[in-house]
């Protein structure tokens, strides 16, 4: 029993532990106008031990692999493995995602490329999508717009942001309230998933005598009670739903708890990584962060995929010079015709 409650408690330090084991990964996509792209995976580690089968993203020995090492001023040695591969289309990558068995195998990922002809320009859109781990509350329900920027911001960027002059203010007004909200969001999401699953089971099997309306009413209380370290599910549920509630439904609750735990594991065990995308032409819009070189950056970690689908997209445009010339010639022809007509009159 305590093990299940502990998933909530342990998750509170999920942020801290998320990237503690194994190499750090940076994935770079260089997208071209025809939909082909080059994917570069850069792994950094303190040991010369890279297990490609267990990498955050699909990589195998068929990729072009280069290994380097670096000794810092302080004498620390880090090893870098760079794996590069050209893809003809996103379908090739999606096939790799389908067959992937590495550390993030629980994640359902998809890449997409779209080209739109807009006469004057061609628009390109590249997307990497990760399905949510569970049907909890989306972070938008708990965080403000300003906080959401930091929620999706890669850890490295938050650190860089906190080195600026107004760091104390940012920490006090954004980071700290976010940390407080994180507990509530996580607790409420887990309890919501649990109640949803109980409700579904009861709906399909009316013989189970559980008042799901009452469960929904008590959702907030259950969540806050479970967040107390010393709490026990049996005590919490009995006190809120009536004595003997847990005993009479323990089999159902236990099996549903296991399901929730399994879903939660996808986010909890997520091996974080960074994705950088270089788009063809001029970058126009994105939901990522644009670095000094005009590349787009996102971080995939357990938080961002916990209870809402994560779409990492970038749009760019390339000017159609021939369309501009044709348009100019046509307009010049029509306008001069009209002008000549006016003079002739």
């Amino acid at each position, binding site marked *: 029993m305590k093990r299940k409650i502990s998933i909530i408690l342990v998750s509170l330090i999920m*942020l801290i532990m998320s990237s503690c084991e194994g190499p750090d990964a940076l994935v770079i996509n260089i997208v071209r106008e025809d939909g082909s792209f080059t994917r570069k995976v850069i792994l950094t580690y303190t040991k010369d031990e890279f297990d490609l089968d267990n990498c955050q993203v699909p990589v195998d020995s068929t990729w072009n692999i280069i290994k380097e090492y670096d000794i810092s001023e302080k004498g620390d040695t880090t090893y870098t493995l760079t794996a590069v591969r050209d893809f003809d289309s996103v379908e090739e990558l999606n096939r790799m995602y389908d067959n992937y068995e590495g550390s993030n195998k629980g994640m359902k990922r998809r890449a997409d490329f779209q080209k739109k002809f*807009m006469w004057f320009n061609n628009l390109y859109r590249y997307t990497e999508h990760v399905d949510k781990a569970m049907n909890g509350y989306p972070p938008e329900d708990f965080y403000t717009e300003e906080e959401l920027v930091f929620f999706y911001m890669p850890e490295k960027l938050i650190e860089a942001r906190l080195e600026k002059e107004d760091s104390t203010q940012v920490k006090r007004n954004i980071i700290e309230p976010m940390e407080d909200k994180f507990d509530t969001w996580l607790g409420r999401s887990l309890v919501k998933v649990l109640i949803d699953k109980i409700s579904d089971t009861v709906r399909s099997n009316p013989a189970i005598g559980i008042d799901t309306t009452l469960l929904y009413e008590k959702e907030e209380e259950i969540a806050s009670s479970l967040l107390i370290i010393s709490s026990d599910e049996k005590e919490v549920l009995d006190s809120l739903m009536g004595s003997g509630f847990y005993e009479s439904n323990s089999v159902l609750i236990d099996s549903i708890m296991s399901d929730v735990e399994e879903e939660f594991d996808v986010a909890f065990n997520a091996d974080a990584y960074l994705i950088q995308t270089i788009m063809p032409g001029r970058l126009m819009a994105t939901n990522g962060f644009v670095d000094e070189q005009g590349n787009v950056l996102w971080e995939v970690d357990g938080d961002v995929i916990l209870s809402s689908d994560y779409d990492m997209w970038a749009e760019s445009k390339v000017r159609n010079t021939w369309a501009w010339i044709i348009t100019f010639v046509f307009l010049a022809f029509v306008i001069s015709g009209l002008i000549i007509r006016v003079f002739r009159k």
Partner: protein
Amino acid sequence: MEVLDKLIAQLRKHKPEIEYRESLKESIMQNIKSRKRKIDYIFGWTDIIWLRKSLALASLIIVLAFIIQQLFVVDRINKLEKRMISINTEKILEYQRENVIVNSVIMKQPETSLLADSIKVSTDDLLNLLREYKELQYRYEKILGSQIKKDSNKQKL
């Protein structure tokens, strides 16, 4: 000069007659007209009302489409400015190198790490603490190194 004057005088006497005066005149007029006709041919559509109106409307639509598309692009690019951050690939990789070193310090003694403790520490604070620790260790080793050097120099003396 005299010869020239004589020639002019002779010509005056025998006025040259243009044989096909009318046809010449006509051909000159034709040439002038054909230039005009070419322009008429190219821009003849301006006399056809429906064609004139359609082409004018098409031009207007194209201009409007161009303006709207450009405004759309400019608006999106302006919004993009909010997502700009001062970091580059090299800095990210540098940070990753630093990060794996810090993580290796945590993982060296997992039993004394966070899971055995009930204190909640933010990621940034923890990483800062570990960086400071590494910096301190580096300085300590540097001092220790210079001390050993001094000692060995003393011994040499």
